[in-house]
């Protein structure tokens, strides 16, 4: 299923390349105006890379790319305060992907991403509830869940098509 892990310089190059791609997508998306008046709704295009890495390179490498992207994304966008929310959402959805990786095959990535999207939003809201010391923020959950499913479906399909093309190139 998953090709044998690359080693040394090959692995490092691949990780650096994927991190750079994820970071670029993240920063470009951050420049777009908000989609709706409800904060927190976005496509999350950078997660295409996370999902791709999870299924192609494995959970460890996916986590490295995710952490580097979340940290550098906060640094480069100048919003360090968003770090805790991105990290909470990212790590929770990484855990869910870890589980889904065992339940689903490489042909069903489009289905993983919406689940991960929902948990990403859940993680962010829980972090926000902790920071704000109020459960009032959870009022956003009914809006964020359908939005997370739709956004996840989109990024999941992107990752699916991407993988089909990249598989043709060989490892």
């Amino acid at each position, binding site marked *: 299923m998953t090709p044998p892990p690359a080693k040394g310089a090959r692995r490092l190059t691949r990780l650096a390349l994927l991190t750079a791609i994820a970071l670029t997508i993240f920063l470009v998306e951050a420049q777009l105006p908000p989609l*709706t008046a*409800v*904060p927190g709704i976005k496509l999350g295009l950078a997660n295409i890379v996370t999902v791709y890495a999870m299924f192609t390179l494995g959970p460890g490498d996916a986590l490295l790319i995710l952490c580097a992207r979340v940290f550098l994304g906060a640094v480069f966008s100048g919003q360090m305060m968003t770090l805790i929310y991105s990290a909470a959402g990212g790590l929770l959805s990484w855990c869910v992907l870890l589980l889904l990786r065992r339940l689903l095959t490489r042909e069903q990535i489009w289905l993983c991403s919406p*689940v991960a999207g929902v948990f990403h939003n859940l993680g962010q809201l829980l972090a926000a509830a902790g920071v704000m010391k109020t459960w009032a923020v959870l*009022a956003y959950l009914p809006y964020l869940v*359908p939005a997370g499913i739709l956004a996840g479906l989109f990024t999941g399909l992107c990752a699916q098509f991407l993988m089909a093309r990249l598989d043709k190139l060989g490892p």
Partner: protein
Amino acid sequence: MSRNAKLILLLLVLVGAACAAFVLLRPAGEGTVARITLDGKLVEEIDLSAVTEPYTFTVEGPGGFTNTIEVEPGRIRVREAGCPDQVCVNQGYISDGTVPIVCLPNKLVIEITGGGDSLDAATG
């Protein structure tokens, strides 16, 4: 499709539909009292139905930023914020309990107690 995939797909559709139904069908609320909390502590409680003249006031949160809050008859918004992301300002007016205004950097929450029936109020 495998059994796992069908199960996950079914769960997703159910959860998504439940949330959409909740958002669309929730009953209209009577709440008109805006509760403004900073860092979990209540700083102001305003009955929006009793407001006749619009006014503004400024609060400073633990993050060191300020939020200028504008109160009008029946609705409330954050007019200016010292934070970089301006999410709370972009959200505009709220007039019911559908969703609160949240300023994450400043730990400010403005919620209207009671229920709400439409997203239109939040999109203002």
